[in-house]
């Protein structure tokens, strides 16, 4: 049996969802349909000549080794960013949930990074990590670490992961904090009376009760890392060196905007869309079963 809100007037119900539907149609379905159409075309930059080529763009794409490399890079990058931004966000939320002096100030400051645009965040970190000029880069070099993100792919990956995580922590922090505050005190106190220590209380009571929040954040973070990190990568590394930080979405941008190959770029975004749909469906099908509402 499903719970169902009762609307005596069906028309009202449709009217209420209409604005949301309209927005989705105009800003999601319409561009998505256009992308699918564009992916079957071969065009010059100015759109002066157009040729319908069926699946040629897809076939060409699946023949380039760089595309598979980008898939690998995307999964490594998103795995690292999602894990660290959730873990650190949760840690900070747990700390800020204590009654300590000036807790409001800490909370406010922890939210600020979210207000920084991704590209700007990248610039801030470049200042610190630029070899030869950046403070942190110089400190690393002093300790004998040859920090060089312009030529070393691993270093470049670490750099973009740090920026992306830093940019996303605030969002996760905010939701975890709200989640923590909605957990009834009495449950935790009961556990404490039963003799459970803080760490045990966290893993057996708090963490399971947070699972709806965690699940929601995993879905949102994966979408973030797949799409919104474009600005970070463009500013920090430009996908380099040698494609080490070229994710799928960055390749869509590179081929479409820089290479003016709209067909190939559209084919990539269609595949990217399918990947994200499958990932999200998978999460709702399997991961959500472990969530306690």
């Amino acid at each position, binding site marked *: 049996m499903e719970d169902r809100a009762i609307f005596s007037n069906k028309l009202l119900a449709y009217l209420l969802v209409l604005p949301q539907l309209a927005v989705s149609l105009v800003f999601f379905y319409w561009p998505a349909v256009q992308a699918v159409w564009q992916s079957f075309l*071969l065009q010059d930059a100015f759109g*002066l000549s157009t040729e319908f080529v069926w699946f040629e763009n897809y076939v060409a794409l699946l023949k380039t080794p760089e595309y598979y490399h980008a898939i690998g890079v995307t999964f490594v990058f998103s795995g690292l960013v999602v894990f660290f931004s959730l873990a650190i966000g949760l840690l900070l939320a747990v700390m800020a949930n204590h009654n300590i002096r000036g807790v409001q100030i800490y909370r406010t400051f922890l939210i600020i990074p979210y207000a920084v645009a991704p590209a700007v965040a990248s610039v801030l970190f470049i200042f610190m990590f630029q070899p030869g000029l950046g403070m942190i880069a110089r400190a690393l070099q002093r300790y004998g670490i040859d920090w060089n993100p312009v030529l070393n792919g691993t270093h470049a990956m670490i750099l973009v992961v740090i920026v992306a995580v830093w940019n996303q922590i605030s969002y996760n922090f905010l939701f975890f904090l709200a989640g923590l505050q909605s957990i009834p005190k009495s449950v935790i106190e009961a556990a404490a009376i039963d003799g459970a220590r803080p760490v045990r209380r966290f893993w057996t009571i708090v963490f399971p009760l947070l699972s709806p929040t965690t699940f929601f954040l995993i879905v949102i973070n994966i979408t973030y890392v797949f799409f919104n990190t474009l600005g970070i990568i463009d500013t920090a590394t430009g996908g380099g060196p040698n494609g080490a930080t070229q994710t799928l979405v960055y390749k869509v941008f590179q081929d479409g905007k820089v290479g003016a190959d709209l067909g190939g770029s559209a084919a990539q975004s269609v595949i990217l869309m399918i990947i994200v749909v499958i990932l999200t469906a998978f999460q709702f099908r399997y991961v959500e079963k472990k969530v306690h509402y």
Partner: protein
Amino acid sequence: MALRHFGAAAAATIALAICASPARAVTEIQWWHAMTGGNNDVVVKLANDFNASQSDYKIVPTFKGSYADTLNAGIAAFRAGNAPGIMQVFEVGTATMMAAKGAIKPVFELMKEQGEKFDPNSYLPAITGYYSTSKGEMLSFPFNSSSMVLWVNLDALKEAGIAEPPKTWPEVFADAKKLHATHPTCGFSSSWITWGLIKQFSAWHNVPIGTKANGLDGFDTVLKFNTPLEEKLISELAELQKDKSYDYSGRTNTGEGRFTSGECPLYMTSSAFYPSVKANAKFAYTAVPMPYFPDVKDAPQNSIIGGASLWVMAGKSADEYKGIAKFFTFLSDTDRQVYLHEVSGYLPITKAAYEKTKESGFYDKNPILEVPLKELTNKPPTENSRGLRFGGMVQMRDVWSEEIEAALAGKKSAKQAMDDAVSRGNAMLRQFERTAAK
């Protein structure tokens, strides 16, 4: 209340505008450009001077972001049916513009139609050649041009016991190793990696980058710069990269500060770096021509340009074209070219302006500004050194950079990297040829 006042003010303004409008309407011409800082001021001044010099046309300059952003904005505007009259496009985008036959108005055609005095021979061939067809018809109007030079920190050379700046690549390699003792993080470095190590390098040694005169004679060109000479350069640099005698500074010019800060005593980059060096270097410096391999028969040949040119977009009114033609005549004026050259550090585009600057003794005081001109005019350009025109170059240079990075990081041999750069580039050329041929 505020609204009512606003309404009244608006009505008054409209009334005034109607009464005050002259018998002849002023034709506005949009000029999209990518110039920042001091060069942005130059653009604005040029527009203002032109607007003040006559009353029929008004040039309206608009800054559109980086070179690539400006090109993208122009393409998007054209697709939406409202392209600007004049668009500044960097040299890398030349083939893209050229291939867009229905989107552009060739400059030579424009000048002929509008009856403006226009002699292609009065321009420096090393510069206009880049923007002309193989028949010598000028397609776009050169605006800001530079070439590549080797910047030298003279104090650091003295400290390392090096008598004079290096002239050849073997000397650069040897000096970089010596400088490593005093500059452990970077003996030698370079910016604009593909421009310097592939494009300039090939022209300077009179070897082709691709067939069909580097693509100038047709889009069915095939890349062939994966030669033993190119591999020798890349593998030497990869070897030096191991102990940072050479240290990579990225694809664009973001690493240029490493020269002015004193970190890298030898630095190969654009001659347009001059104003920054002058303002920031706290040591004795100079700029010398790019190095060459002395065992190559024709080296040094002549260098090629970088920078940007002005493209006229198609589908504008006759009035607008008249104004644009007059503006180009205005820009070609000798005194104006001399002024632009001296204030911006970019190269003059007419022979007369070069001669006049030379006679005025300007180069005796600023010898560095003449180095790129000497490089460009070192020998009459050949098929290999007139320029290059490869479709999809905006992205292809990233692909080439990726391969150079792989070689420098030791992930691929120089030969493998250059073979891959050529084969990936050729795939892009074939796709471009297919969409452009119609």
